[in-house]
């Protein structure tokens, strides 16, 4: 088992955990954290899967992930604005009512 294998398996598990929570969680804040966790897993996978070149990491996935981190936090800010607005408008912190899924 090499280091790269360890990181790939960890990233895959984190992605799976995030997806599971995204499906089962009701609270929108928790679903947002789940999306962020999945994003972090993808970042780790991108960097590890590219592998090192001549002792240092491949610069292209690093640049993608660097901008990805900043774009992810801005998307989180936008999502939180939507969640706060939804709570103000409906008083609900979930996309369901009384535990019944919406007919959408």
């Amino acid at each position: 088992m090499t280091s790269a294998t360890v990181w790939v398996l960890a990233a895959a598990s984190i992605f799976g955990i995030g997806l599971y929570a995204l499906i089962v969680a009701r609270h929108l804040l928790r679903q947002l954290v789940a999306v962020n966790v999945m994003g972090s897993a993808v970042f780790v996978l991108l960097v590890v899967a590219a592998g090192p070149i001549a002792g240092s990491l491949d610069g292209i996935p690093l640049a993608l992930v660097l901008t990805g981190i900043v774009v992810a936090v801005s998307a989180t800010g936008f999502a939180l604005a939507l969640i706060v607005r939804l709570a103000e408008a409906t008083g609900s912190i979930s996309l369901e009512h009384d535990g019944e899924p919406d007919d959408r």
Partner: protein
Amino acid sequence: MNLAVDLSIAAGLVVLAWRSLAGRDLFRGIVMYIVFGLLLAVTWARLGSPDLAMAEAAIGAGVTGALLMVAYWRLRRISPAEPADPSPRRSHLAAAVALLSTGVVAAIGLAAVGAIGPGGIAGRALVEALPATGLGNPITGVLVVFRNLDTVLEVAVLLAAYLAVRAVLGDRGETLAQPPPQVARLVGALVGVVAPLSVLVAVYLLRVGSYLPGGAFQAGAVLAACGVLLLLTGRLRATADAGPWVRGSLVVGTVVFGLFGVAMLAFGEPLLAIPGTWAVYLIETAMMVSIAVTLMLLFAGAAGLGGGRR
């Protein structure tokens, strides 16, 4: 020893991801997610990328954590009747879907690790082409020279996020939560040290970013985290309208980068050609300002920023 270090950090990340998302207490989940961000910074350090460790330290552990905490508080205030921790919904498919996606991601990752070997083709081309640009940091090379159209658009995405938040929340200058007045002087002492130091570190990162780890995104992240500190302690105030300085700062990154790229056409160069390292510094400074101000406004959930109490 190397493998043991990798195994323990990776296992810690998995456990933290699980604990951030499981359990009934949402506040605990948020704290776990903040710790997840800290361990992710350690992960980037372990994988050998100081650039990502810096960005993660400022954003993953700093800005995102504060953003989630303030949102948690706002939601409790808006709808106190709603449970902070609704029970998860029952789904027969969730576990199967999650397992399947884990398998797919693992297969993709393992195939990529096994197939390409040491580094991607583009990565090797980058290593060869980098010396010609006069830059020493490959990430800055990719962001400003080789894939700069992507970078312009990414800064534009930040601007779009700001506009979207304004569209959703309307023009409001909501007062954020403030620490209790009894500790104002103590917190002031911290801000008095951290704020100037953040500016110093940001300028340092911008300066060395062309040849050492650092650059506009890291420097902007540091300034944004510092701005979050100023907003949380009342040194800066969220206002309902954006003044000329805020408007200018929001667009300066996209505008400078874009105008510069178009201007190069007039000199018979390709679109977005970079004539020298001085241009890299100019563009990176403009991007840093835009990134920092946009993230601060996204945190405040407001249109503009104004001076607060001392």
